[in-house]
């Protein structure tokens, strides 16, 4: 497995998920260590998001997906370890948003357009911490200040469409961290943002991780983002894990061809000099030949 050999926070073992006849995850296994950022990388359709949704127990809700085999072991806040796939829906609801939180790619569509940002953050706090509305509002305000939302009190009463993309993603992060989760799953959290805001978000997430001690599962296809924030990497392709390891090892000595191609796909200034058309990578050539 390469990473997380001692006391992992999350251990996915032999997980297989199918959508009808299509196998979305094929015997997937990897570990995720406490307090670390593990990047799950791979092309679109490789199974990254299905992995995240499987951990959240959301993959089968309202879809045709079926979990065929495997286990997802998670160390809870009280120190006990459970298999998330064996949990009842009630148990999963007490874990979601409380012990494992998730932020999504597109913050505008991920926030409910008809409720204020404050209401949406307070809902999570009230649900898991049993606070009164007043106390939940104070906590939401504290979270907004923590993710450095300017004029936080005003933003509490704003609707999502009244905020910029970066502000919306800060609201999502505040909501995800409001119950002090042990694991934060970030599904391409910077893809919908422009480059300067991406850098701000990554910096903020790293800082908050240091403050809270939460582990982060960062789902991305951007190797630049991985280089910046990840400790460990899980490379996925076609529903399978291709390679896992420490970020330095993978960047320095990638073992799999696919990982090498992924790393080679990072655009570098001047790499097109003297070429009339974009370079085809080994994997594209391989696919064309088939």
């Amino acid at each position, binding site marked *: 497995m390469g990473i997380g050999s001692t006391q992992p926070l999350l251990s996915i073992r032999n997980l297989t998920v199918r959508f009808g006849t299509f196998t979305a995850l094929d015997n997937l296994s990897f570990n995720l260590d406490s307090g670390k950022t593990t990047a799950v990388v791979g092309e679109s359709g490789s199974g990254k998001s299905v992995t995240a949704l499987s951990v*959240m127990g*959301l993959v089968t*809700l*309202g879809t045709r997906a079926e979990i065929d085999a495997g286990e997802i072991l998670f160390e809870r806040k009280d120190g006990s370890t459970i298999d998330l796939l064996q949990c009842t829906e009630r148990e*999963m*609801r*007490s*874990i*979601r*948003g*409380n012990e494992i*939180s*998730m932020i*999504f790619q*597109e913050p505008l*569509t*991920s*926030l*409910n*357009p*008809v409720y204020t940002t404050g209401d949406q953050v307070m*809902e*999570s706090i009230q*649900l*898991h911490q049993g606070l009164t509305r007043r106390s939940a509002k104070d906590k939401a305000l504290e979270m907004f200040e923590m993710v450095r939302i300017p004029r936080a009190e005003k933003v509490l009463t704003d*609707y999502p*469409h*009244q905020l910029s993309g970066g502000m919306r993603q800060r609201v*999502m992060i505040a*909501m995800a961290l409001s119950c002090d989760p042990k694991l934060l799953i970030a599904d391409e959290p910077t893809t919908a943002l422009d480059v300067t805001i991406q850098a701000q978000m990554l910096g903020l997430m790293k800082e908050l991780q240091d403050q809270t001690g939460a582990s982060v599962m960062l789902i991305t296809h951007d190797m630049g983002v991985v280089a910046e924030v990840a400790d460990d990497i899980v490379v996925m392709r076609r529903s399978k894990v291709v390679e896992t390891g420490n970020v330095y090892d993978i960047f320095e000595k990638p073992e799999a061809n696919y990982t090498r191609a992924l790393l080679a796909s990072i655009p570098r200034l001047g790499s097109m000099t003297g070429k009339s058309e974009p370079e085809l990578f080994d994997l594209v050539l391989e696919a064309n030949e088939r």
Partner: protein
Amino acid sequence: MKAIAVKIFESFLLILAVIVFNFVLIYLAPGDVVDALSGGAFGDGREEINQLIREQMGLDQPFHVQLITYIGNVLTGDFGFSPIGNRPVIEMIAPRIFPTLLLALCALAFAVIIGVTIGSIAARRPTSFFSGGLTVFALIGFAMPVFWTGILLVLVFGVWLDWLPVSGMNNLRLSSSAGFVERALDTARHLVLPTISLGVIFLASYARLSRASMLEVLQSDYIRTARAKGLSEGPVMIKHALRNAVIPIITVLGMEFGVLLSGAILVETVFNWPGLGRLAFEAVLTRDTNVLLAILTMVSATVILANLVTDIAYRLVDPRIRIGDV
């Protein structure tokens, strides 16, 4: 607030335009109430008598004078006199407004509450037997004309089963000393069949619409976020999904209120319901133009008011609309 004030002003102008349009329409129609009144008269003096009546009613005045006089009167709440009813029009209409509004609102509430509920349940499991059954029911509901549904209900629940009254708004044999609750219950029993008859077509429509709307909303990212927070399906469906799913239903509600009132005319005729619809039907037969104009004005004003309420409700439900206040 400014947007709502503008909407109210626009609505007022629209009602005025509708009054003018209705007046022109009835003026251009061949024949008038005098023809109906003197329909049985005969002999040499008939034309003179008709002329005399026209002068008394102001029907001999030029069109624009009649129109301006009528609008002036309507603005002061005077809808004229009904030679057929031999009473001021307002006295004939006033007791009919409540029964029609009661029937229309009950049918609307029946259609919306049950339609949205079953549509939402069907959307939870779109491939289930229940969901398929809803599609068949909606098809049947659409296909049944209002008067046919009414006659069918009269036959089944009034004649064969004898469970519910099929005519009027109150039991005529109800003692005059009966209390408010007893009268209300009696009206409720009389209201059941007309409400179902009028509401079923809209119920089918709202059930289909809310199913489609819910299906779309349930695929939204914010529903996934709500579930990721740890919310149970109840709050996810009711708080997060339904409020977004009702937005298209509110739009349709305002537009269909006019259709609902036109359906009320047929239902009132079938169930002998003492509402505006039946009065309008009688006014058409007797060419009682003042009554007909007053009813058309009332109905138009109600539809415009319903659309105004829809606009306001739309803003309340969807905060994104407030930004672009029209």
